[in-house]
C-alpha cells in the first residue's frame, strides 16, 4: 500500500453536456513510468490536467500520499509538468528558465529563498541533466534534446514527486524521437522519479513504460504491463488498437526489408 503515490477514485468528468470520463479509478505506483495511451479525445489529457490541478473532476477524489488533493491548487501539489514543444520561456537563458520558479515561490517555511540557495540548487540540477555547457544559452540556441532536458530541469528544481508529460514528442521527427526517448528513460532511471506520460503513439508507450493505461470510450480499457497488454489484451479494442497496430508495423517493416533483399 505504501507504494501507491496517487489513487484516483471514481472520477467523472463532464464538459457541459459531454461526458469525457466515467467512473475511472486507478493507482499510480511510486517510481513507475506510466503511460496514458489512447486515440485522440479519449480523455487522457483530461486525466493529466486533473492530476496537475488545472481541471477539476465533476465527481470523485484524487488522493496523493493519503491526502485528498482534489481541490488543491496546482502549485501546492508538488507535481511538475512538461508540455508539448516544452514551452520554455524564450526570453530567458537556461539558468533563468530553471531558477525562475525558485525566485518566485517561497520555500516550505514561507520564506523567500536566498540567492546562494537558488544558485546552488539550479547548478545542481543543471549538472544532473548535463547542461553545464549551455547555461547561458537561450532556448532557440538549443537542440530539441537539450530543450527537453531544460524542461525537465525546470520542473525538477522544485523537487516534485511526479512529473507529467503532455505528448512532448508528438511534433517531432521519428529520428529525434528515438534519441529523446532514450534520454528520458535514462533520466528516469537515474532519478527514480514517478513519471506519467500522455501519448497516442503505441510505439512510444511501449518503448518507455513500466505500465500502460489504455483508454477508450470514457473508461480505462486496460491498465497493465506492456507484456500483458500485448499477450493478453483485455478486449477487442485493446487488441485492435495495440496488438494489431504493432503487428502491422512489424510486418510492414519486415516486408520492406525483404523487398530490398530481393
Amino acid at each position, binding site marked *: 500500500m505504501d507504494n501507491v503515490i496517487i489513487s484516483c477514485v471514481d472520477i467523472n468528468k463532464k464538459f457541459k453536456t459531454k461526458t469525457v470520463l466515467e467512473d475511472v479509478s486507478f493507482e499510480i505506483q511510486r517510481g513507475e513510468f506510466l503511460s496514458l495511451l489512447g486515440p485522440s479525445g479519449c480523455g487522457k489529457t483530461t486525466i493529466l490536467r486533473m492530476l*496537475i*490541478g*488545472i481541471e477539476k473532476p465533476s465527481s470523485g477524489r484524487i488522493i496523493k500520499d493519503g491526502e485528498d488533493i482534489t*481541490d*488543491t*491548487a*496546482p*502549485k*501546492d*501539489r508538488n*507535481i*511538475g*509538468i512538461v*508540455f*508539448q*514543444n516544452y*514551452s520554455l*520561456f*524564450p*526570453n*530567458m537563458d537556461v539558468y533563468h528558465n530553471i531558477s*525562475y*520558479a525558485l525566485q*518566485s*515561490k517561497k520555500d516550505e517555511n514561507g520564506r523567500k529563498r536566498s540567492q546562494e540557495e537558488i544558485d546552488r540548487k539550479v547548478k545542481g540540477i543543471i549538472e544532473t541533466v548535463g547542461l553545464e*555547457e549551455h547555461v*547561458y*544559452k*537561450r532556448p*532557440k*540556441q538549443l537542440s530539441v534534446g537539450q530543450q527537453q532536458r531544460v524542461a525537465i530541469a*525546470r*520542473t525538477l528544481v*522544485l523537487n516534485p514527486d511526479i512529473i507529467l508529460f503532455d505528448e512532448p514528442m508528438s511534433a517531432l521527427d521519428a529520428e529525434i524521437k528515438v534519441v529523446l526517448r532514450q534520454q528520458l528513460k535514462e533520466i528516469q532511471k537515474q532519478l527514480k522519479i514517478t513519471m506519467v506520460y500522455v501519448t497516442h503513439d503505441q510505439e512510444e508507450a511501449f518503448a518507455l513504460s513500466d505500465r500502460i493505461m489504455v483508454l477508450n470510450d470514457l473508461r480505462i480499457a486496460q491498465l497493465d504491463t506492456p507484456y500483458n497488454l500485448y499477450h493478453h489484451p483485455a478486449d477487442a479494442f485493446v487488441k485492435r488498437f495495440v496488438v494489431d497496430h504493432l503487428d502491422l508495423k512489424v510486418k510492414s517493416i519486415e516486408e520492406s526489408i525483404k523487398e530490398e533483399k530481393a
Partner: protein
Amino acid sequence: MRERMTRHDRLLRHEVLRIISIGCILLFAILPLLTLAFNVTGKDWTFIAKDRKFWAAIKNSLTYTGAAAVITTALALVSAYLLETSSLRKKNLYVIALTLGMLVPTISVGLGLRVLFGANGFLDLLFGLELEVRGMPGLIMGAVMTSFPATFLILYDALHYEDKGPYDAASIMGIGRLSTFFRLTIPYLRIALISAFFACFTLIFSDYGIPMEIAGKVKTLPMYLYDQFMSSFQYGRGSIAGFVLLIPAVISFVFDLIFKDQSSEKQNRLIPSSAGFNRATVLVLVLLCVLLFMPQLAFISLSFTKAFPNDLGFTFEHIANIFSNTHGVGLTAYIFNSLKLAFLTAIVGTCFAYLLGYFSVRKSGRLAKVVDLLALSTIAIPGLVLGIGYIFLFKGTNGTFYGTILILVVVNTFHFLGSPYLLAKNCLSKINSDYEVIGETLGISRGKIIRNVLIPNSVSTLVEMFSYFFLNSMITISAVAFLCTYDNQPLSILITTYEKNSNYEMQSVISLIILFLNVVARVVFTAITTLVNRKNNQSAEGGIGFTRMEFDFLTYLEKNGKGVYSQRKLADDLTITLSNATRLVKETADHDYINILPDGEIEISEKGLKALEPYRVRKAIILAAGFGQRLAPVTLDTPKPLVKVNGVRILDTLLDALYAKGIKNITIVRGYKKEQFDQLLEKYPTIRFIDNPEFNLANNISSLIHAIDLIDRCYICEADLYITNPDIINKYEYRTNYLGAKVAETDDWCFSKRNGYVDDYQMGGTDCYQAFGISYWNGEDSERLKSDLRKVYAMRGGKENLWEQVPLRIMKKNYKLEIRKCHKSDIIEIDNFIELIAVDPSYAKYPGAEEYGGRS
C-alpha cells in the same frame, strides 16, 4: 480549504478586471452611440427621408469614395508589390516616405490642393493655370492622398507574410514575374485586397477634413452631419446621418470578422526578390511619394512665404515667430497640449489595448469572445460620431471629466483602439499558450508571467502600438474638435481656428510643426524597434558563446601552441587594437579559457578547448564525380581530381590540408571512373566513398544529394582545387562561410559583398570576390541547406542546378553567408588544358595534346 479560497479569489479578481474592461468599452464606445439614438424622433425620420440635401450628400459621398477607394487600392497594391519584391536596401525608408501623409492632418491636404491648383494658387500665379479643383476632382485627389498610407500598409503587411514556397517553385520553373503576379500574388491577396478596399472606403467615407476644404458645392455626408449638429442644431437628424456613416464601417467589420481568420495563417517571409526591377521600382515609388505628398509640400511651403497669395517672397518670419506667437493661450502652449495628449493617449491606449488582447487571447471562455468583438467593433465608429456622442453622454460631468484633458485621452483611445488591439492580439496569440499553466504548477503568478515572459516577448509590438496612438493623436481633428476647451486644445484643432480667418501662413506653420514632431517621433520609434529586433536576433544567432574576437584569439592560441605572446604581437597577428588585445587576454583568463603560466607564457586551457568544440569542423564532403571535360585529353584517362600536377595529384593538396588540421572524416562523392579513386585509400585510409551513378545526367547538386545526410558542421569542397596554401583549411570555423579572394576583375563565378555577407553570386564581375569551391556549414545552416537542397532537387528542372546556386541564389534569403577571405594565389585553378600546361609544362607532350591546343 484556505488554499481553495485564495485560488478562488484570484480567479475572481481576474474576472473582475475582465468585466471592468468590457464595461469600459461599453461606456466609452458603445453607449455614446446609443445616446445619439435617443435623440432621434419619428419626425426626424420623415424629414430625412424627404430631404434632398441628405440624399444628394449620400450620392456624392458614395461616388467620390468609390472612385477614390478603387484608385487607392490599385496604387497601394502595385507599390506594395514592387517594394516587397525588389531587393532594395533600407526598405523601411521607402515605407516611411510612402506613409509620410499619415503624419499630417488630412485638412492640410485639402488646403494644399487649393493652394496648388485653385484660383490664386501656385499654378495660377506661376503659369496662369487655374484648375477648378473644388468639387469632385479635388475630393477624389485628396481622398487618394490621405487614404493611401493606411491601405498601402495593409497590403504591404499581407504580402510580407506570404508563403514563399510557391514563388521558389515558380522561379525554378522559369515562370515570369508578371505571370506570378497575376496567378499567385493576386489570388493569394484576394481577401486582403477586399479588406484593404473596405478599410480605405470607410476611411474616406467618414473623413471630414478633406471635404471641409475642397468639396465646394459638392456636399458630403460628414458635412451634412456637421451642419445638422453645429449650424441647425438638429441633433436627431444629425444622429441619423451619423448612423448612415457607420454602415460601410460595419460592412467592412463584418467582412473582416468572417474572412480574417482564414487568411491569418501567416508564414514567415516572403516572396523572393530580384534586383532586375530595382531601378524601375525606385522610379515609381519616388514619383508616387512626390505626387502623394505634393499638396502637403505646397501647403507647408507657405510657412516660408511672406503673404500668400500677394507676396510669394521667401521668409523665415513665420517660423521665427512660433515662440512669440500669442494667439489664444500661445502657440507653445498648444504644442505642449498636443504632446501631452499624444503621450497620455499612447500610454493609456497601449496599456488598455494590450490588456484587451491579453483578455481575449490568453484567457478562455465566453468573456474572451465578448472582449474580442467589442474591441474590434470600435474600428467601425467614425471619430466624428464618437465625438458628438461624447457631448451628449458626458456633458453632465463638466469639470471632472467633460472639459478636461481626460476626456480627450479617452476619446482618442477608443477612436484609435482597433488597430493596436489587433496588433496586440496577433502578437499574444503567437506566444506559446502553455506558459500560464506552467506558471501555475511552478507557483508563478499570472501577473509575473505577463511581466517577465509576455511583455519581454512583445516589446516591438508594444512600440508599434504606442507609435500608432501617438501619431494619430497628433493629427486627429474629428472627435477632439467637439470636446476640447479653449485651454487644452491641441495644435491640430488650431488649423481649423486659423481657417476661419483665412490665415494660410499660420495654418501652414502649424502643419509643419506637427509634421516635424511626428517625423521625430517616427524616427525614434523606428530606431527603438530596430534596436529591439537587432538585440533579439543577436541573442538568437550569436550566443554560441564567443565573440569573433575571442574566437580568433583562442583558435590562434590553439594553432600556435604554448608561448610568449606580447600584446603587440597579438594585436598585429589578430589585426586588433592594443587595448582589445589586453582586454582579450584578461577576459579569457578570467573565464579560465587560457592559462597564464608563471613564466609569462600563455596557452589555451582544457576549458577553452572544450568551449571551442562547437566550432570544430567535423568533416569534409568532396564532390568529385564530374568528368572534367575541359581538361581533355588528360581526363579521358584520369578523373580530374586525380590528375597529377608536378607529380602531385590535385586532390592530394586538399586531402593533405584536411589531414593536417585533423579533419579525417572525409567523404568523396565519385562517379566518373570511380574505381580509380580507390588508390587514395593507401595514403588516406579514413576516407569513405559514395557513388553517384547519375553524375553524367545531372549537375553537381545530384552528387551532394547522395551525401545529403552527412551535411553537418562540415566543409563542402570541389575536388579540382590545386591548393598551394594549406592554411585555408581551418580546424575551427566561426560561422557558415564561403571562401573567396578579392579581385579587381574576373570572368569566373564571384560574389558581391554587403556588410561582410554574400549579396549576389554571378558569373563575372569587377571589384568582387572570386568564389572558390570551399564552404563551411555550421549546424543550423546545415539543416537549412539539407531541406532546401531536397526541395530544389525535387522540383522540375531542379537537377540541372549547381548545388551552390541553392544557398547563393535560389534560396539566398534563407542564408547569411560570410565571405572567408583568402589570397588568390592560395589556390591555383586549373580550368582547362592550356592552364594545366602553364602550371606543369610536361603536359605539352601528353598524347593528343596538339589536338587540344597544347602545342609546346
